[in-house]
């Protein structure tokens, strides 16, 4: 039941095209994951570990049929960020995650635009009934975005029982009828 890459969905928003993370995104993905900016999401990675992570993101689509999208601006196939649904081993439920790869493109609402599209896709096409975002308590930008997306703190939600996750806070997205 392996998913073929050609079958992965493409989401269009006002300014963005979201397509599945694939082999052509590895070089830029590695560059992003080795930046200090990824400190709130398990980084910065070594180049070797970043490559392994990118290979895993591609396999994520094959295993689950969903995964991380990359964000492309109109008329350009180069990824400027990522947003998608994540459920690797150790996760108690599906997470909606995001990241802007180029610091110069932060603050323009791209992550918000992508997250809304992915959430609508998750609730619509996939029929999910709930989503969380796991956020480092010091990651003020992501907390602000979660709140703009209508998420609320869920103190009772489980976090992945993995090293380094202690203290992670869980924002729960509004239910499909409220999103």
């Amino acid at each position, binding site marked *: 039941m392996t998913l073929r890459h050609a079958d992965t969905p493409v989401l269009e928003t006002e300014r963005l095209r979201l397509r599945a993370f694939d082999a052509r995104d590895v070089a830029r993905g590695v560059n992003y994951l080795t930046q200090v900016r990824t400190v709130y999401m398990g980084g910065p990675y070594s180049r070797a570990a970043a490559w392994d992570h990118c*290979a895993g993101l591609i396999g994520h689509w094959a295993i689950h049929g969903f995964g991380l999208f990359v964000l492309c601006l109109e008329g350009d196939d180069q990824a400027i960020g990522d947003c998608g649904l994540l459920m690797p*081993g150790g996760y108690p439920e599906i997470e909606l995650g995001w990241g802007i790869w180029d610091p110069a493109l932060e603050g323009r609402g791209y992550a918000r635009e992508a997250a809304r599209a992915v959430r609508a896709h998750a609730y619509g096409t996939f029929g999910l009934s709930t989503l969380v975002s796991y956020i480092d308590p010091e990651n003020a930008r992501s907390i602000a975005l979660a709140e703009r997306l209508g998420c609320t703190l869920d103190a009772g939600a489980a976090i992945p029982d993995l090293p380094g996750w202690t203290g992670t806070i869980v924002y729960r997205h509004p239910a499909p009828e409220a999103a």
Partner: protein
Amino acid sequence: MPTSRIPVLDTRRLVLRGPEPDDYPNFKATFASYRSRFMGGPLNPYETWMLYAAEIGHWEIRGYGMWMIHDRETDKTLGMTGGWYPAGWPEREIAWIIWPDEAGHGYALEATHAVRRYFYDDLGWEGAVSYIDPKNLDSIRLAERLGCVKDKEAATIDGNDAVYRHPAPETLRSGQLLDGIELEISHYCDPLFKPKGMPVD
């Protein structure tokens, strides 16, 4: 290369296919166990899952990767073998792992001999190495049975591994080494005979 287009390799006792989502439980059991101590394990649930996902992603990025080894008769999985070349590796590696309960039947020898032939004959590789923990005596012994020679000059992954260099394609085309490997495999396939070497992997 999408996993749906990964070539299937057949040997006398085995079928090698691309890693499928359904095959994950056996991989997980092995990488969560002490068996994986020479391959960076044991790993936690996240690391194990992401490594398995990376096995699939590796095929997409490099066009080759690790096959899942299946028993031809029962279809159960026995381990993995194939090519492994993540960003941290100095050269393309031929790697293998056999699930702990399936060791000792020559599966790694039979499967790895087949994938090496595929890399040499179909992909045109001129050679390959295997990076092996110096304490992993079973794998060192298998590398030697496959004709590998320790290469003390070659770059290692991180200084904690020994580099075993595989024989060149022309060495494997015919001759004593090839005959020896195929004779040993045939001994494993035919239970009337016992392998002469240590029954590892």
